[in-house]
C-alpha cells in the first residue's frame, strides 16, 4: 500500500516540475478511496487511548475507530502495529506562512491573509515534519485591526488549495502597534467603531427608503425608526469593503482574535469585545505577563492562546534573583481552555508542539489537557471543533503517526495523513536525511577529536615518568604552554586537531 501512496506523491512532485528534492510546494493528491490503519495505539484525544485499534478512512474522512472496527473488503490495510496515532497537531496562530507578516495600514479589516500567503515557505514543510496538519495563518501583532485569517493545511500549491477554512477570524491587537501608544491604539478602535455605526445608520436609512420606494410608498416613520427597520434589511452586499467585515464581526460571523500582549490589556480587551457584541466569539492571544491578570481572564472565561515561551521570567532588581513562572499552570488552575504554540525562536526543543505539551505534563498539568492543548482546543477556538482535532468517526482524517509516545522526545513523526492523503513519510524525507547525515558526520568528528585527545594524553603521560620514551622532535612539539590535550582540540583560527 505504502509504495502506492508514495507513487501518488511522486506523481505530484513530477507534475510540479521539481525533479530533484525538495518537493515543496507540491500539488496535493486526491485522497484514496478507503484505507484502514490497523494495530496501532490510538490517542483519540476525544476519549481514552485505544490499544490495537483500527482507524477506517473513507475519502479523507474517518468513518470508524476502535479495536472492533470492521474493515470493508475494498479498503487497503496499512499495518501500524507498534505505532502511536494522534490527531494531526494544530498550530493555533502563525504569521510565518505570510510573505509579509504585517500590513502598514492600522485599520485594514478588508484584507485577507490569502493575498500574502506563500505556500513555498519551508515553514510548511517543517510543519509537516513536526506532525502539524492545520495552521491558522493570521496577520502579526503590529496592527489595530489586521484583516481576515485563514486555516490551512501545509500541502498544496496555492492558498485556495491549502485552505481548510477561509475568512475565519479578524485579527485585532490591544497592545499598541509599532509607533503607536496605548491611548492612540484604543482611540483608533473607538473611532473605527463609531464611524462604523454612523456608516451603518446612513445605509440602513437608505435601505429602508429604497425598500419603500420599490413599493411606491412614502417614508412613514422618523429617521431613528427608519434606521432601526433598515438595519434588519441590510445584507453583506450593502456594506463596502472597509465596513463589511466589521459588521460581520459585530453580528458574530467572525471570530475576534485579539492580541492581549500584557496584563494591562486584558480589561480594555474585555470592554471592547463586550461593547461591540463579539465577546462570545473572542479568543485572546496572550503575551508573556498577561497571566498576571488571571482574575480578569478567569472572569472572562474566554479561550486563550499561550505565548510561544511558556515561562515568564522576571529579575528582582535588588537581589538579581530570577523568578520563573510556568504560564500554563496558572491558566490551567484558572480553568481556562488554552492552546499551545510552537516556539520558532527557540533553538531548543520548544519548537515542537509535542515538547510544549510534555513541558506542561512535567509541570503537573494532566496529560489529557496537554494533548487537547495541541489538538482539539485550537480546533474549537477556530470554530472547527466538529471537523478537526480528534480521532472520531465523522472527522477529517488528519493523523500524525509516531513510532512511540508523542510526548516522549525520543519518538519520531513517522507519517502524517491530511484529509486521508499521505502527506509526509519520514522514510522519504531527503532534507531530514541530509540533516541526520550531517549530524553523523559531526558525531564522527567529535569522536575522532576525543580519541586524538586521549592518545595525546597517553603520549604525554610517560614523559613525566622515569622511563620516558624519546621526546617529540621540535617540529611536532606543541606551541608553548598548551597541553597536548588542548592542542588536539581544533581552535578558531588556530588549525590543530585533526
Amino acid at each position, binding site marked *: 500500500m505504502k509504495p502506492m501512496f508514495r507513487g501518488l506523491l511522486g506523481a505530484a512532485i513530477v507534475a510540479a516540475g521539481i525533479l530533484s528534492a525538495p518537493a515543496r510546494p507540491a500539488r496535493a493528491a486526491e485522497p484514496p478511496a478507503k484505507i484502514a490503519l490497523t494495530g496501532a495505539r490510538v490517542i483519540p484525544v476525544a476519549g481514552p487511548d485505544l490499544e490495537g485499534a483500527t482507524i477506517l478512512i473513507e475519502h479523507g474522512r474517518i468513518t470508524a475507530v476502535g479495536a472492533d472496527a470492521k474493515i470493508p473488503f475494498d479498503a487497503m490495510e496499512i499495518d501500524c502495529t507498534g505505532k502511536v496515532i494522534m490527531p494531526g497537531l494544530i498550530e493555533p496562530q502563525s504569521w510565518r506562512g505570510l510573505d509579509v507578516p504585517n500590513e502598514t495600514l492600522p485599520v485594514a479589516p478588508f484584507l485577507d491573509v490569502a493575498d*500574502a500567503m506563500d505556500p513555498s515557505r519551508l515553514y510548511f514543510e517543517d510543519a509537516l515534519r513536526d506532525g502539524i496538519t492545520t495552521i491558522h495563518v493570521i496577520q502579526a501583532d503590529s496592527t489595530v485591526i489586521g484583516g481576515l485569517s485563514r486555516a490551512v493545511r501545509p500541502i498544496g500549491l496555492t492558498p485556495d488549495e491549502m485552505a481548510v477554512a477561509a475568512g475565519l477570524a479578524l485579527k485585532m491587537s490591544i497592545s499598541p502597534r509599532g509607533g503607536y501608544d496605548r491611548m492612540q491604539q484604543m482611540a483608533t478602535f473607538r473611532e473605527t467603531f463609531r464611524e462604523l455605526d454612523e456608516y451603518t445608520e446612513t445605509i440602513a436609512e437608505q435601505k429602508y427608503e429604497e425598500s419603500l420606494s420599490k413599493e411606491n410608498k412614502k417614508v412613514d416613520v422618523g429617521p431613528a425608526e427608519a434606521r432601526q427597520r433598515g438595519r434588519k434589511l441590510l445584507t453583506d452586499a450593502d456594506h463596502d469593503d472597509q465596513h463589511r467585515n466589521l459588521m460581520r464581526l459585530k453580528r458574530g460571523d467572525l471570530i475576534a482574535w485579539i492580541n492581549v500582549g500584557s496584563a494591562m490589556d486584558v480589561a480594555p480587551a474585555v470592554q471592547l469585545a463586550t461593547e461591540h457584541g463579539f465577546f462570545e466569539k473572542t479568543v485572546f492571544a496572550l503575551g508573556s505577563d498577561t497571566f498576571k491578570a488571571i482574575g480578569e481572564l478567569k472572569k472572562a472565561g474566554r479561550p486563550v492562546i499561550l505565548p510561544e515561551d511558556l515561562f515568564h521570567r522576571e529579575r528582582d532588581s535588588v537581589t538579581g534573583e530570577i523568578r520563573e513562572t510556568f504560564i500554563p499552570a496558572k491558566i490551567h488552575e484558572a480553568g481556562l481552555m488554552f492552546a499551545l504554540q510552537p516556539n520558532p525562536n527557540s533553538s531548543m526543543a520548544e519548537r515542537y508542539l509535542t515538547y510544549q505539551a510534555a513541558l506542561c505534563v512535567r509541570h503537573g498539568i494532566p496529560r489529557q489537557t496537554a494533548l487537547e492543548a495541541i489538538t482539539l482546543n485550537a480546533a474549537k477556538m477556530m470554530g472547527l471543533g466538529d471537523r478537526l482535532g480528534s480521532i472520531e468517526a465523522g472527522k477529517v482524517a488528519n493523523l500524525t503517526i509516531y513510532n512511540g509516545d508523542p510526548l516522549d522526545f525520543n519518538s519520531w513523526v513517522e507519517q502524517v495523513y491530511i484529509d486521508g492523503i499521505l502527506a509526509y513519510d519520514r522514510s522519504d524525507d531527503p532534507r531530514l536525511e541530509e540533516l541526520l547525515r550531517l549530524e553523523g558526520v559531526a558525531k564522527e568528528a567529535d569522536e575522532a577529536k576525543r580519541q586524538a585527545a586521549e592518545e595525546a594524553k597517553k603520549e604525554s603521560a610517560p614523559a613525566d615518568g622515569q622511563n620516558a620514551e624519546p621526546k617529540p622532535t621540535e617540529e611536532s612539539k606543541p606551541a608553548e604552554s598548551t597541553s597536548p590535550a588542548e592542542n588536539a582540540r581544533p581552535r578558531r583560527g588556530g588549525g590543530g586537531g585533526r
Partner: protein
Amino acid sequence: MKVQFFQIADRRINSSLLRFLSLFAAMLLPPSAMGQEVSAYRVGKIITMNEKDEVINNAVLIVRDGKVAQIGKASQVEIPEGAEVIEMPSCWLVPGFVELHNHSAGASTDLHDYVYLTNPDLRTLESVNPGTENFKLARAGGVTSALLISGSGTNMSGLGTVIKFAEGQMGDVVLKFPGSIKIAQAGNPERYWFRVGRSFMNYNLRQTLQAARDYHQEWLDFESGKTKQQPLFDPIYDPFRGLFRGEFIASMHTQQYQVVMMTLMLVKGQFGIRTVLDHSTFDGYKNATLVIEGQDVITINGPRQLYFDGTQRRIFGNAHRWWQGGIPKLGINTDSPVIPQEELSYQAAMACYYGWKTYEAIRGLTRIGAEALLLEDRIGSLRPGMDADFAIWSGDPIDPRSTCWIAVIDGQVVRDARGELRRF
C-alpha cells in the same frame, strides 16, 4: 495603391489562395511602376521559426515592399530581376528579436508616476521617443521590436506600447497600442509613500481590475440590449475593454513563488486576462504546474538568469528550471535598461549556460515574444507575408561570440555593421 491592396489582402482575408493571388498580381506589375522595393538575402542558414520549425540551409529570402515575399533553398528560389542582392553565405538569418519588457524606448523621466498606487490612465505611447540612442543600440543587438512599459513602482503603472526600433518618427515606430497593461504585484510598489504590504497590494489591484471589468460589463449589457441606459464613457477604464476582450495582455512584473502564484490566481484566474509573466525569477519557477494549467500564460524570464537557492545551497538557471517544469512557452527579457536591450541575446546565452536549449532560446526571443504580444501574424517568424524584420548574424545568435552584422526592419536595412569593428 499596391501597399493598401497587399495589406488588406493579408490582414482581412485569411486565405492562402487569395494571398497567393495577391502576390501573383503584384508580380505581374513592374516593380518601378508600383514604387516597390525588392531585395534578396542569400545566407548560409535561415531560422524561420515557422510552425514547422524549419531551418533552411543555403537559403534565400526575398523581401518585397517591407514584407517577406519568398523564402527557400537558394537552388529553388529565383531572385527577381532588379533586386538588390545581399550575399552573406556564411551567416545566419534570424527573425528580429522581440523584447517584452522595455523601459528605454521612451524618455527616461517618464518611467514612473507615484501619484497613485494604481495608475490605469497612464500611457507609454505618450513617452515613446524615436530619437533616443537606445533605438540604434537595440538594432545593433538584433532586437527589432519591443514592448515599452512604464516602471514597476506602483501596482498598475499604465498601458504599454509595442514599438519597432525602426528609423523615423512616431508613426513609423508604433506597432500596437495598447500593447499591454503593466501590473506589479510586489517587489517595488512597497516604496509607495505609506509603505504598502503584500495583502494590501493584491487587494488594491483586485479593486482596480474589478472596477475596469464592471465598466466593461456595463457596456456589454448595454450593447447586447440588456440595459437601456447608455453607460457614461470613462476615459480611464475604456481602454481596458480591449484587455477583457483579449486584444492585449497584462504584462506582469512578478517574481518569487508567492507573487507569481498570486499573478496566476488573481490576474489570470479571477479575471481571465491574457497574462504574460515578466521576470518570473527567483523561485518563481516552482509555479510551472500552475502556468501549464493557465494554458495561454506565457513566461518571459529574466533579467539575471540565475537563482541561488539558500535552502538547497545551489545555483539554478531560472529558464532551465522553468523549462524542466514543462512549460511550453518561455521567453527572455532584459528589463532594459536594467540589462541593455541590445544584450537580449546575452541573457539568452546565460539561460543556456545554465541549462536551457539554444534553439528554444532563439524561439523564446522571437516567436514566443510575438505570440505573447498577440502579434504572431506580423512579427517573430519568417513566412511569406510577415513583416520583414530580421537580423543577419555571423553565427548562432545565442553564442556570445557572434556578431549581428545587419538588422532589417520592415524591409529597410536599419543597421549595417559590415566593415565596422565595434559591436554596438
